[in-house]
């Protein structure tokens, strides 16, 4: 069982690093999705380990939420892209840090 957890943790870390390192909003966003899926993996593995269904149900909800997030997130990214022709996070710098 620990392999799955390790894998999920690895995926999560890769996603997190990606979010921090990458500059393209879409890529950042995909990294976040990767993290969500890593979470799902963890949920399902733990569900198996504990022998109850809570984790699997949780994975269900996570999928739905991830989908909703995709809809909203892509809409925002697309609208920014339409106005600026760039999806780089660094190009969005009207708000001073």
């Amino acid at each position, binding site marked *: 069982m620990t392999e799955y957890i390790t894998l999920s943790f690895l995926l999560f870390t890769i996603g997190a690093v990606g979010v921090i390192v990458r500059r393209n909003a879409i890529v950042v966003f995909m990294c976040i999705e990767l993290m969500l899926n890593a979470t799902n993996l963890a949920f399902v593995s733990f569900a198996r380990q504990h022998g109850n269904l809570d984790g699997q149900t949780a994975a*269900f909800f996570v*999928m*739905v939420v991830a*989908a909703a997030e*995709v*809809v909203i997130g*892509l*809409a925002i990214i*697309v609208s920014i892209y339409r106005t600026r022709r760039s999806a780089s996070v660094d190009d969005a710098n009207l708000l001073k840090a």
Partner: protein
Amino acid sequence: MNDYVPIVVLGAIALAFALFSVGIAPFTGPARYNRAKLDRYESGIAPSPLPDGGGRVSIKYFFTAMMFIIFDIEIVFLYPFAVAFDQLSWFAFLAVMLFLVNITIAYVYEWRRGGMDWT
């Protein structure tokens, strides 16, 4: 877990076949260089340059994708419900119906606001 082993086997066979076919293509066919041949095809006229990133595509495709996601999620919920249908009480039944009503409302909203106009 063993249920999935045959799938892997079949997948391996298919993958091997596909890789082999695509892989031997350079050796089976002729290779005669021709600049026009390597250009993209545009009905016989000189191809117009593509903008970066493939250029813009209609936002309608985005709408379609979004709607698909919403409805696909709906289906994801409906399948377990359907499978367990006979074991479910009225409560679960009504809950899913309520869920469907909600989806329908979103659907009507999208329809009315022009999200499904393809013309």
